[in-house]
């Protein structure tokens, strides 16, 4: 039993859940012991969106140093705008809208990988520059108008059972599938192998190119999914709807115990980190901290986590 506990505590994702729990406790205590359940419920609702994009970002970061997807916010926006415009508040068009949004996201992923592979542009530049194109497309399609989501979509995105959002349950299942994929499929093993040593992965007979392609496409499509859900949740798409997710998608991956240097992904940690990030902001709000202080705190915490995680001896993985 003791062995199990120490093994559990040795997992890199446990820390993020402990931190989330601690912040929640502080917030509840400061609020006089009230509203703990509500805070948790809304934390779950908001964390869900961060987790979706975090999963994609995790896969990309795990493929090795230099790999990161900075086009996530733009892809979310494009996907949300396309979906809302096509659905045009009609319930009958929900599936058409989702299909078109996912198709567009797929193309963004293909374009990202194309820039990286064919033009040999570093991923950080490739995805950043493609996000300008993607966002411009979203602006020209959406014209800045906020179109409401059809009622069934809004209902699904906001529905809860005993305080637990439906979307959170669905995304928990999605996270489980991605966790399984990472550990127990050829694709997942290849992602981890490339992240450790791309040349060795190629020489071991793994399909490096196809795996990297699939990973950038996966990240873009998860961003697209997040865009549609977010539009349903917050009453329509907006051109700035992805803004908070650039830093958040990377932060939850890093805080969640995924190796920044690649080769080792961590799925449960993304949930812990996403809850932690939301609860931290909530706690600072309850404390009455100004937005400036909140941003400074968030930045400091991310730096601290990277410093601690980076000093770990990589040999003792």
């Amino acid at each position, binding site marked *: 039993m003791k062995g199990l506990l120490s093994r559990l505590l040795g997992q890199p994702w446990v820390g993020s859940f402990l931190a989330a729990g601690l912040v929640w406790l502080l917030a509840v205590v400061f609020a006089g012991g009230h509203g703990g359940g509500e805070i948790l419920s809304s934390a779950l609702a908001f964390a869900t969106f961060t987790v979706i994009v975090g999963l994609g970002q995790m896969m990309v970061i795990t493929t090795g140093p230099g790999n990161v997807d900075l086009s996530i916010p733009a892809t979310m926006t494009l996907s949300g705008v396309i979906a809302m415009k096509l659905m045009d508040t009609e319930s009958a068009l929900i599936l058409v809208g989702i299909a078109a949004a996912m198709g567009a996201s797929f193309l963004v992923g293909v374009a990202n990988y194309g820039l990286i592979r064919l033009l040999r542009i570093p991923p950080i530049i490739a995805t950043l520059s493609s996000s300008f194109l993607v966002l411009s497309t979203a602006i020209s399609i959406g014209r800045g108008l906020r179109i409401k989501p059809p009622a069934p979509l809004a209902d699904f995105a906001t529905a809860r059972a005993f305080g637990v959002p439906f979307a959170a349950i669905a995304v928990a299942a999605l996270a489980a599938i991605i966790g399984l994929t990472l550990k127990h499929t050829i694709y997942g*093993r290849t992602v981890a192998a490339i992240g450790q040593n791309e*040349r060795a992965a190629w020489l*071991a007979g793994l399909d490096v190119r196809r795996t990297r392609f699939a990973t950038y496409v996966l990240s873009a499509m998860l961003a697209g999914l997040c865009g549609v859900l977010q539009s349903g949740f917050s009453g329509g798409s907006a051109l700035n709807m992805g803004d908070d997710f650039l830093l958040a998608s990377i932060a939850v991956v890093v805080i969640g115990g995924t190796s920044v240097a690649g080769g080792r992904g961590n799925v449960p940690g993304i949930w812990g980190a996403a809850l932690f990030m939301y609860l931290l902001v909530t706690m600072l709000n309850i404390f009455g901290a100004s937005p400036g202080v909140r941003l400074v705190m968030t930045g400091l915490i991310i730096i601290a986590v990277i410093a601690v995680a980076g000093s770990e001896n990589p040999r003792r993985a």
Partner: protein
Amino acid sequence: MSTEAIRLDGVEKSFGAVRALAGVDLVVAVGECLGLVGHNGAGKSTLMHVLAGALLPDAGRLTVGGAEPKAQWSAAASQAAGIRCVFQELSLCPNLSVAENARITHASLRGFGWKGRARALICAKLDEIFPGHRIAPDDEIAHLPIGQRQMVEIARAFTVTSAPLRLVILDEPTSSLDAVAAGQLLSYIRKETARGTAIILISHILGEVLATSDRIVVMKDGKQVAARPAQAFDRSSLMAAMGSDLKEVEARGDRRQSPKADSAVVVRASPQREGGGGELVVREGEIVGLAGLAGHGQTRLLLQIFAGQADIDRPVAFVAGDRQNEGVFNLWSIAENVTVASLRSLIQRGFINVAAEAKLARAWRERIGIRTSDMGRNILTLSGGNQQKVLFARALASDARIILMDDPMRGVDIGTKLEVYAMIRAEAAAGRSFLWYTTELDELTHCDKVYVFWNGKISDSIEAADFSEQRVLRASFAESGT
């Protein structure tokens, strides 16, 4: 002036429960070349780390030039006392140039024009030890093949500026050098000892230890078990002193049945080179050797075949010799490192079958003798030789019928080599084909056919019956035309 360069009395060192050095007495005289042999894990590397000041002994005494070192023993004290080391795991900075790496160990190269002096220093030494080395002082280390990196590391150890040169320790210095460069180094060692420098030569290649050393010390289980003048040893008495079974060694001599000349051709490849590079043909069940000086196109041809730019009609696997850069996945367990090339056969209902994966890993631990109690431990807990076995197991466990090997025996001890040779022969008898690039001439005797490379093309092809070292060396300089 003392005639002793360095002396150790009763030096002990333990790592936890493991006793790496169990009381070692060792004297190296001025101008002496001392050969040091023993299996992987006999304590040779630990002893050298103590001399280099990287490790402090738990007990025992160390004297340099007949006197106790004045300061606390450390890497800096060792360097100041004139002790230089060339370790098996090379210690050059890959992002710096050859000249900049030379500067790292010579703090006196400072001020205006230090780079020019560093260039001149390292170039002169490279020219002296390895004439015709083809290394430029501004080459970045990362872009040099492993053989040239080893040359730079060796040449740097022999350069002198402010600190004197008393003792140079060479740990497997020829493991990545081809026959010619290795020969150049060994004759340079004789020249350097004549000038009064003491040298400790650690090598698994017994022939070069026997030919180069004045005296040979055999280590086993952290102790010195034999020390005699080199003339008093021969190959078999040296093997016996190390505790190896002689019968195994003699089994090497058995020529195996070569596969029939009409068995199916599985690889047909031509080195990509202007004016044609010749043609290489591999048949089913054949062991084909690639020889010649390092960097003359052997590895390039293996990679070309691996990338599919040749006629191949069987699945291919690659065994890397440069373990760190091309073989091992550092974050993974031993088991994951073994099974990574066999995942397709482990898939059940879309997912990797965990039980089958563990079983496959365990089976290969037994078959190839990976020394660990738990295949779930991290790959870096293994010694270099055992990591290399993992890379062999990875290729042999896969469904590949053609195995490409890129000088895979670097730093592997004789016992392990014999096990792997036997396994290669057994696999070839079962119909697998091997393409084997090696820098050790001895290993070519295991091959059914040898292609010698020169300047990117095949300069000779030798059947087993006609094989001789002279012919390989001649073709290495393209003196024989085919």
